[in-house]
């Protein structure tokens, strides 16, 4: 009886299948198109400003001439400082959560805290850093304050991705080490961590990209609109690409005249961040090769 009905919905089914496929393709193309148009827009407007001098010189003539070298250096220093802050804390927390913590109220609270922290707007981190590091601890507006603030900002990402990488390490590695008479910490340090490290670092490098692009947190804690001093002490103020763009576009005396510099700096920042992401992808691929779990 049912035999005759089996081909019944065929036409409809195919049409629906095609429609869904089309829709999904469209969304994928759209995502790519947004990305491409941002890049294109920046390339068209920023590329003319970029030359060797732009990358290697200090700004001159109220920022209308010269380059963005101090801002590039500042951004790199701040991002690395953030990573140095977030990695010990984040990896430590991840090892605790993934390896030691027994499921319970405390652990649920910690996880809830971590994921909530990830949702806090970055400007709030900026205010927090201002009141804690800059004022209370007396670090002033400095590389130190900015790095700590950005470090806290990326802490949830670093923690979550490190925990995920640890969880993906097969249980059998731990068992094998323990069965050979390793202590818990020996098993983690000698077997689990080496296996999980590529994944843990990938997450951290992606977070590093985020830290490099942030504006609000460092506006309060680290960024100078203009300084000639090199970043030779962690208590120095620095320029940064993101705040440099913001300042040129909103606060400077020659907003229109510095448009090329603004776009140029934006392009440099984007390339820097994309470069970091690429770097993360490359080491992940490299370290993943030859392992099968």
């Amino acid at each position, binding site marked *: 009886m049912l035999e005759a009905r089996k081909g019944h919905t065929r036409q409809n089914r195919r049409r629906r299948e095609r429609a869904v496929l089309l829709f999904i393709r469209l969304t994928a193309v759209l995502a790519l198109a947004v990305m491409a148009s941002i890049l294109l827009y920046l390339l068209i407007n920023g590329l003319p400003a970029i030359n060797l001098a732009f990358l290697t010189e200090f700004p001159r003539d109220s920022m209308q001439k010269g380059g963005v070298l101090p801002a590039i250096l500042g951004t790199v220093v701040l991002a690395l400082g953030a990573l140095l802050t977030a990695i010990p804390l984040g990896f430590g927390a991840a090892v605790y959560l993934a390896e030691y913590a*027994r499921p319970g109220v405390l652990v649920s609270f910690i996880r809830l805290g971590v994921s909530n922290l990830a949702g806090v707007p970055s400007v709030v981190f900026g205010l927090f850093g201002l009141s804690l590091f800059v004022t209370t601890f007396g670090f002033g507006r400095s590389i130190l304050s900015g790095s700590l603030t950005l470090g806290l900002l990326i802490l949830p990402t670093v923690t979550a991705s490190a925990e995920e990488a640890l969880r993906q390490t*097969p249980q*059998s*590695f731990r*068992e*094998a*080490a*323990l*069965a*050979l*008479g*390793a*202590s818990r910490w*020996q098993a983690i340090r*000698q*077997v689990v961590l*080496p*296996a999980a490290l590529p994944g843990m670092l990938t997450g951290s490098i992606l977070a590093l990209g985020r830290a490099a692009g942030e504006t609000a947190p460092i506006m309060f804690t680290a960024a100078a609109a203009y300084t000639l001093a090199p970043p030779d002490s962690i208590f120095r103020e620095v320029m940064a690409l993101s705040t440099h763009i913001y300042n040129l576009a909103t606060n400077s005396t020659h907003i229109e005249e510095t448009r090329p510099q603004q776009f140029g700096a934006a392009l440099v920042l984007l390339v820097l961040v994309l470069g970091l992401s690429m770097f993360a992808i490359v080491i992940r691929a490299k370290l993943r090769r*030859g*392992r*099968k779990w």
Partner: protein
Amino acid sequence: MVEDSVIISARNVDFYYGDFQALKNINIDILRDEVTAMIGPSGCGKSTFLKLLNRMNDFVPGARLSGEIFIGGESIYAPEADPVVIRRRVGMVFQRPNPFAKSIYDNICYGPRLVGVKKPKELDELTEKALRAAALWEEVKDKLGKSALELSGGQQQRVCIARALALEPDILLMDEPTSALDPIATAKVEEWIKDSGLSIVIVTHNMQQAARISDKTAYFFLGELIEFGPTKELFTRPKEVKTENYITGRFG
């Protein structure tokens, strides 16, 4: 009294996972230099019992044991017993080959290094000895620096055997060591077990395997040790009806 030839001895062992009693009043004496097979249907407690012998169940939350287990005359659940030392004396090979993501050499040296062996020459010797004992030396002697994960499944499992043997354990526990291997690799591992001359306790779901390689067989059912005796007798003239039902394939 514990005889000299007895290496493992369990007395009135009850074991619980939370409220679930996984083992009921287990009493067994396992002899030195013999291969002892543990058989029974899934969930009968055979693997649980095996993991009690090197205290791998310590890591299971809510696990609880009463009764005593002696290895070489020492109570391994006594308060002063150190599980880390016990695991160095009782080696274990798992169901799926689980070499570390390290070179073959570093896999084998893992145990010796844990107990403080540092001299390269000594480590080299231990590695060769362990790989020879696991019947793998000839196949891998030219690629000790390669990742153990690049080997075939059967070779990986023998790396794991060698890794356990490198610590020169008194006993080797094997938890279904061939269940993830193809027939040829299985045959190699079985052959190794038969010829090793070591004290081996092996859990297997494969009755033919138990019959082929073991001196003694223990049949577990629903957490109880139903029957334990020489393998030939147990398979040809089982004393218990439950054993007979299982080995003749009437269930399980």
